[in-house]
């Protein structure tokens, strides 16, 4: 098990070195993923809240679809995004392929169903509690959705974190539409894939440890926020 220690030592070394290439890769990973999660939340939260707070024909079908889309394989998402963004595809003229924007789009496709499906569940639970009071006050459809989103915000933070975890860890989609281009579209996961393919397994694992540390830091920050909200009885 001495190799395990070597890998951890290497990971710590990587972080302590503060190598400019590594920082660039970490920075791009965070930028792409946080942007994708933000856009996914902007789409998925209102969508999930609407499905969660209303009864309408076809609702069950939408829920089934959203839940099924949570399991989309990243490679398939990458291929779909590639075919749309390719010069031969409908969005080719935008020239987004092999840019961070393309990676963000792919991750957004991947994460939006997760945010929508999980927030649907959260909002539905809140709505069960509020339904009669809202009906009595005469809360309109728009206020209903926004009030539920606001009151459930700390629970929805967990939803956003689930999306973040999925996006930051996936490699299949971003490597296809990003191309893993050095200094342009290389992120943590594609760098790990590259080092693995070069047989540099220790370095690949050390990068994995760094990625894990980032995920822990982001989750820790969000959970601290939530914990203080729980103390305030807002969650």
């Amino acid at each position, binding site marked *: 098990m001495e190799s395990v220690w070597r890998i951890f030592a290497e990971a710590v070394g990587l972080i302590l070195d503060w190598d400019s290439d590594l920082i660039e890769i970490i920075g791009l990973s965070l930028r792409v993923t946080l942007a994708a999660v*933000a856009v996914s939340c902007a789409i998925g939260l209102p969508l999930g809240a609407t499905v969660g707070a209303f009864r309408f024909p076809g609702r069950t079908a939408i829920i089934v679809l959203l839940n099924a889309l949570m399991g989309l394989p990243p490679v398939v998402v990458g291929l779909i995004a590639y075919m749309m963004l390719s010069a031969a595809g409908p969005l080719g003229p935008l020239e987004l392929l*092999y840019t961070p*924007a393309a990676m963000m789009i792919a991750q957004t496709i991947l994460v939006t169903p997760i945010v929508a499906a999980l927030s649907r569940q959260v909002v539905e639970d809140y709505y069960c509690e509020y339904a009669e009071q809202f009906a009595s006050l005469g809360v309109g459809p728009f206020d209903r959705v926004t009030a539920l989103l606001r009151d459930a915000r700390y629970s929805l933070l967990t939803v956003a974190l689930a999306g973040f975890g999925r996006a930051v860890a996936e490699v299949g989609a971003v490597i296809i539409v990003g191309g893993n281009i050095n200094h342009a579209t290389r992120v943590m996961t594609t760098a790990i894939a*590259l080092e693995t*393919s*070069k*047989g*540099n397994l220790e370095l690949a694992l050390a990068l994995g440890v760094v990625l894990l540390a980032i995920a822990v830091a982001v989750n820790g920050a969000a959970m601290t926020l939530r914990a203080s909200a729980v103390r305030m009885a807002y969650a």
Partner: protein
Amino acid sequence: MGTRILSSLIALALVALGAIHPAAADRFIIVQSTTSTQNSGLYDHILPLFRDRTGIEVRVVAVGTGQAIRNAANGDGDVLLVHARAAEEQFVADGYGLSRADVMYNDFVIVGPGSDPAGVAGMRDAAAALARIARAEAPFVSRGDDSGTHKAERRLWQEAGVNVTGASGSWYRETGSGMGATLNIAAGMGAYAITDRATWAGFGNKGNRRILVEGDPKLFNQYGVVLVNPKRRPQAKAGLAKQFVAWILSEEGQAAIASYRVDGRQLFFPNAGG
């Protein structure tokens, strides 16, 4: 009050989009290429020289040769640099490429465990060595991904008179992965594999494995460069791509290739115009 929630969500998304706004589309081109050239570190050596000379940034997308050709046919690249001559010529004949030229070569080698259960170490005839591996039913790991290396490997099996399709899943294993992934799997299984010498030289997970068969002329591995037909690319890129192809075929570019060494050994041998 409600509108504030929605507008803050939208503002968040816009800020995020701003952060991801594509870098000013300045002077760069996209080269669709193979994992072998990328993993060997060749590009990290020669591309800075080209950028210093011309100010043009070259962005390399390293995938299997088959996928690289498909991507380039879709117009998702300005230059194609791969190692499957017949496919490259077909690419030009189909109108996807404007011209093709030899750039450099190296060779394939058969690698395997030091214990060498099939006893092929030191053989010069690659086809005969493969035939012996097949007879011994010693595990062999193939790319199985229609890459340049996979195409070369299949030619050799044909020459050896071995039908590997029937053995697939038993001693013959198709990974459907890149060169590096395939070598990692071969290492895990104690299997033989065919790889280009450059990838092998840069590969870090060799363990007790070594080159067993090399030097057969049939293991020759030619790399070609193709200027992609720019009908689907921005006009400005076509000129930059032409400059890159001209440079890599020039004396300066060829010298840059020749000067790349790993552990003191030259990995690619320029042969433009040859």
